[in-house]
């Protein structure tokens, strides 16, 4: 079991910055995220977009901000459980919490900070009636282990970068790769589109456009797909169907944790410390709501700071925390070393 002071759900900017504010108060953090990479919306939706409203940065690229946040928190050595969804939460008799992920990883913490943003990103599933019957029985929304497809007949659907990239990658591994897209044009890096064209010319990728998958057939596992192409309908035998239509955020399991929810967001006590209706569970950043809430990175940072003060009092009852500016005391890692702010040059006046 992973032990920590604050368990943070969500590795977006709010979750990441929490580690820093908690670290100043000598509280340890562990972060869970459903995605394999940290950064939340900044990494997933707009890594190359410039942001203009982070104090002190006239402009900063979203991806760069995430890198800097990561750099800033390294000294507090947060733990990460990535690629796993926080699924259940159990409050213990002593007021601590156990959070378990969809893969069964258990985390024990004194407080839980939900920084889950828009929720967890889930694959957008095509509207094929019986598709859920075949999930993990030939229908795969992610390519986790390419070796799984070695020597198999694979059909990929979609028109974006991941559909192109995986078609190219699997062309060397699978026995047969078919790419189906609703249009003749693909939206992706020019280089990838050209590679797919070349592989098609070599006969290594079958391209079926403009077309759609409208049905799945098979006895207990995918055996063939129904394809509709400009009015004609035909079956194609395949071993695997990989629909790649991007990700969509869903509030997910958090919706079932007994927290007060309003308009897809968790209600918190904003006058005080961003605590939810369950003592010890906080919600900060885009996931929370209160009168006047603004969904901005800056606001998430502010909420994280106030929340950490409250958690400090919860973890250290009776101890009074005195606010010290980091420029005065420097930043102390858990090893006790002081990462001091550089002193200005002092020059004697003659």
């Amino acid at each position, binding site marked *: 079991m992973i032990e920590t002071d604050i368990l943070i759900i969500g590795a977006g900017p709010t979750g990441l910055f929490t580690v820093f504010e908690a670290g100043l108060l000598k509280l340890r953090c562990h972060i869970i995220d459903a995605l394999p990479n940290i950064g939340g919306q900044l990494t997933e*939706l707009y890594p190359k977009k410039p942001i203009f409203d982070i104090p002190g940065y006239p402009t900063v690229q979203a991806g760069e901000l995430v890198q800097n946040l990561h750099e800033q928190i390294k000294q507090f050595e947060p733990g990460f459980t990535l690629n796993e969804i926080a699924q259940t939460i159990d409050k213990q008799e002593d007021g601590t919490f156990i959070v378990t992920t969809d893969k069964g990883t258990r985390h024990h913490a004194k407080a839980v900070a939900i920084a889950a943003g828009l929720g967890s990103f889930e694959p957008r599933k095509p*509207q094929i009636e019986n598709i859920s019957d075949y999930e993990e029985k030939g229908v795969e929304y992610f390519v986790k282990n390419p070796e799984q497809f070695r020597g198999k007949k694979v059909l990929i659907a979609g028109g*974006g970068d991941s559909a192109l990239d995986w078609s190219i990658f699997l062309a060397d591994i699978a026995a047969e790769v078919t790419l189906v897209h*609703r249009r003749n044009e693909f*939206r992706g890096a020019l280089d990838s589109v050209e590679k797919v064209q070349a592989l098609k010319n070599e006969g290594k990728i079958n391209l079926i456009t403009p077309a759609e998958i409208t049905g799945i057939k098979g006895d207990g596992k995918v055996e063939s797909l129904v394809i509709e192409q400009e009015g004609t309908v035909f079956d194609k035998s395949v071993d695997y169907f990989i629909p790649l239509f991007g990700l969509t955020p869903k509030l997910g399991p958090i919706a079932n944790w007994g927290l007060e929810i309003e308009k*897809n967001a968790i209600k918190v006590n904003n006058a005080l410390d961003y605590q939810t209706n369950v003592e010890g569970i906080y919600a900060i950043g885009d996931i929370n709501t209160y009168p006047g809430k603004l969904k901005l990175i800056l606001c998430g940072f502010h909420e994280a700071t106030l929340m950490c003060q409250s958690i400090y009092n919860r973890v250290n009852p009776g101890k009074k925390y005195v606010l010290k500016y980091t420029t005065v005391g420097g930043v102390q890692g858990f090893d006790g070393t002081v990462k001091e702010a550089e002193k200005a040059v002092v020059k004697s006046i003659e």
Partner: protein
Amino acid sequence: MSDVKITIIDREGNKHEVEAPTDMSMNLMEVIRAYELAPEGTIGTCGGMAMCASCQVYVLNENQPLPEMGDEEEAMLSEAFNVKENSRLGCQLAITEDLEGLEVEIAPEY
């Protein structure tokens, strides 16, 4: 500059006549959000970058002058679900005087 009147049918089939300002550089997705015609978190997920299609609408009047579809919008609509001939992305429709009298229906959530 004045406001324009737009009719929006929400996902429950209710009709709303709203006034949208032409001088605040808003787009139709933002108008729908501002009037709370779709639940928070179900529209405008990508922040208006033509990347999520959560703001898809069906344009109901035939002769409405509308801006041409850009490559991004066209590409997103080619991948989105529930797309019809009259589909547009709300975030790509800037509120201008041309939109006076526009009638749209918000596409189902996906």
